[in-house]
């Protein structure tokens, strides 16, 4: 539901909207120690062998003393969240099943995984378990049907994921949201205030070739408007998913073929196997509110991916800091 629709309703109902009394939202969190998953790539390859001395981490612009923790001590549960709407058919469906199955098979035996499907409705297709048999079977037999509520599905998964430890959420969708009651902004807020790591894969149909001229003459369309004038701008719904994923330290992939879809899932699995977990106890910063995190490399070159921050709730009933 867009805020615009809801506000229009209120205006219509009341004639004049009531002046709101703003109360700062509060959130639960624990920050005795902060754990940050970090991915380091150079020329598209994960960079191995880094130590704490290779990382500089700032929490709200204050440098922190970090240690690198063995990833085995901070396992991530895997939650696959797959679009099962009516458009996921044929080659696309087969590719999704194959990519998801390969991802599940690649997980370590001790890593728990579950499968959530969504059209307009959200459903557990396979509950979280270290035994991936149920998830693989559900992946093989779900039947695509209905429309798309990707924001509701992502929010539901985030809410469900926080009952035990951290989760990596792998979202797949092939369409624009058209049934969610929540919007991208709401889900972004929920995501930022969660511990989840979100990777998203969007299926994008390959751009059609430029229409051939009936006379064989060159198109009169200016280069900046033709398909040859550069990549088209990213659709808003894909842009939103990209922003949500990147804010958590995850990434957004687009796929326009089974091969690219398989590659995206393989890269996610590979990244999870080559992550660094930084641990620190915040020093020199206030406890409550939004903590902006910045991670840089020292004495190494590479591209760093990490969550952009975390949120600590003020005590209930107190006027707290502003939201991220």
């Amino acid at each position: 539901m867009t805020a615009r629709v809801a506000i229009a309703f209120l205006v219509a109902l009341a004639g004049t909207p009531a002046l709101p009394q703003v109360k700062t939202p509060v959130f639960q969190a624990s920050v005795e120690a902060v754990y940050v998953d970090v991915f380091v790539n150079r020329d598209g390859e994960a960079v191995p062998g880094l130590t704490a001395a290779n990382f500089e981490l700032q929490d709200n612009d204050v440098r922190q003393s970090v240690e690198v923790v063995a990833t085995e001590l901070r396992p991530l549960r895997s939650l696959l969240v797959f679009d099962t709407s009516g458009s996921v058919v044929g080659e696309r469906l087969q590719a999704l099943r194959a990519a998801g199955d390969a991802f599940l098979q690649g997980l370590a035996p001790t890593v728990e995984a579950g499968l959530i499907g969504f059209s307009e409705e959200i459903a557990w297709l396979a509950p979280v378990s270290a035994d991936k048999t149920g998830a693989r079977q559900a992946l093989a037999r779900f039947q695509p049907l209905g429309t798309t509520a990707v924001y509701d599905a992502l929010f539901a998964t985030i809410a469900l994921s926080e009952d035990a430890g951290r989760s990596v959420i792998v979202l797949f969708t092939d369409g624009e949201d058209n049934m969610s009651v929540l919007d991208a902004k709401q889900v972004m807020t929920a995501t930022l205030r969660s511990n989840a790591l979100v990777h998203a894969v969007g299926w994008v149909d390959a751009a059609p070739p430029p229409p051939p001229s009936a006379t064989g003459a060159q198109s009169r369309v200016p280069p900046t408007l033709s398909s040859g004038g550069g990549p088209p701008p990213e659709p808003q719904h894909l842009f939103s998913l990209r922003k949500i994923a990147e804010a958590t330290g995850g990434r957004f992939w687009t796929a326009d073929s089974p091969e690219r879809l398989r590659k995206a899932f393989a890269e996610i699995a590979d990244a999870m196997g080559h992550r660094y977990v930084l641990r620190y106890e915040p020093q020199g910063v206030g406890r409550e509110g939004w903590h902006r995190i910045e991670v840089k490399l020292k004495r190494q070159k590479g591209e760093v991916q990490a969550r952009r921050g975390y949120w600590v709730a003020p005590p209930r009933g107190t006027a707290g800091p502003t939201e991220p």
Partner: protein
Amino acid sequence: VVSEAKDVEPRFLAHLFLGRVLEDAGRLDDATTHYRRALEIDPRSQSAGMALAHALRLAGEDTGARSVVQKAVSFAGQRGGRDWFWTYLTQSVSPDDLLTELRRQVDP
């Protein structure tokens, strides 16, 4: 107008929309009250469940939010594809139309 309407569907939508407006205004207690009323009308509505859960998380009630989401998801396959918010979206009913319908029911 909302509380006196006879038909449940516009009443459900009115509570859902009022909840969202109040949530955006930071009045989270009031927002959750309206979302809960929508859920009282249709306990199996996933849309109302998600809206309520989101407001609860904003209020710091993560455990309550998770419980609401678990319940909403547990109804999957039992709604017969029905959720009045989904119907609203597919029918492109304007807020003014919704208000007109509410008033018609209160004072035919």
